[in-house]
């Protein structure tokens, strides 16, 4: 089996407080991969927000977060956001680093969306880290180290044609989101 990773588009934020939406996503790939290097425009607790096809129905999104933190920080934890909690895909982690976090540091986050054009519910794997070279972790004005793995679901059978990526306060300047198409051949 061969696997090809095709860059679709890379967008960098030029004005703080922005969101990025990829529309008219080609339906010719097997899976999608999204790479986010992000920082919040705000100064307090913030997270990455993801929506598919402009869907803002709370019962369509659920996620389970497994998070671990730096030495001296909170204990590793797991929490489940049942469908209907938020009207967007809202992993409590990853946190986004904010304007008061260590300068020049960004959160790194990867989404993998298998079978995005299929007719089943869409499962999403999210892997994310922050590291501000500070021991421990604090989620309020995030500093420290956090690793999170999120199992998420968009409980809809429609093909994903649009992905919204933002945050509560918007993404800061130089935040970058890249969208890739994954093509498996011979399967």
């Amino acid at each position, binding site marked *: 089996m061969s696997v090809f990773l095709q860059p679709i588009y890379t967008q960098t934020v030029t004005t703080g407080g922005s969101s*990025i939406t990829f529309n008219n996503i080609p339906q010719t790939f097997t899976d999608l991969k999204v790479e986010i290097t992000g920082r919040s425009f705000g100064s307090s607790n913030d997270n990455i927000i993801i929506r598919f096809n402009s869907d803002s129905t709370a019962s369509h999104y659920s996620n389970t977060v497994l998070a671990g933190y730096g030495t001296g920080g909170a204990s590793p934890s797991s929490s489940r956001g049942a469908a209907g909690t*938020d009207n967007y895909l809202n992993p409590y982690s990853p946190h986004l680093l904010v304007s008061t976090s260590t300068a020049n540091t960004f959160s790194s986050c990867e989404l993998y969306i298998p079978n995005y054009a299929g007719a089943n519910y869409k499962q999403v794997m999210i892997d994310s880290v922050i590291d501000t070279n500070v021991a421990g972790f604090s989620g309020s004005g995030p500093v420290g180290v956090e690793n999170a793995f999120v199992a998420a679901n968009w409980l809809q059978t429609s093909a994903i044609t649009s992905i919204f990526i933002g945050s509560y306060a918007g993404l800061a300047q130089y935040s970058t989101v890249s969208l890739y198409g994954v093509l498996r051949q011979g399967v």
Partner: protein
Amino acid sequence: MATVIEVDCTTGISTEREQTAEEVAAQAAMAAQAEADAKAKAEADAAKEAAKASALAKLAALGLTADEVAAIL
């Protein structure tokens, strides 16, 4: 003013515009929810830590050493 960047993946054209009033309101609502979520999680974490400290104290009162307590955690 916050902006919205929209990328058309078919044409490769990226456009940037200011948020509409509706989008501003929606973002404010999400921010309020985030604050509430963070507060609830912080309270839950604090309660969990307090319960753990209480449990450790009770185990110590029963005569368990710190190593013995650590072994059963």
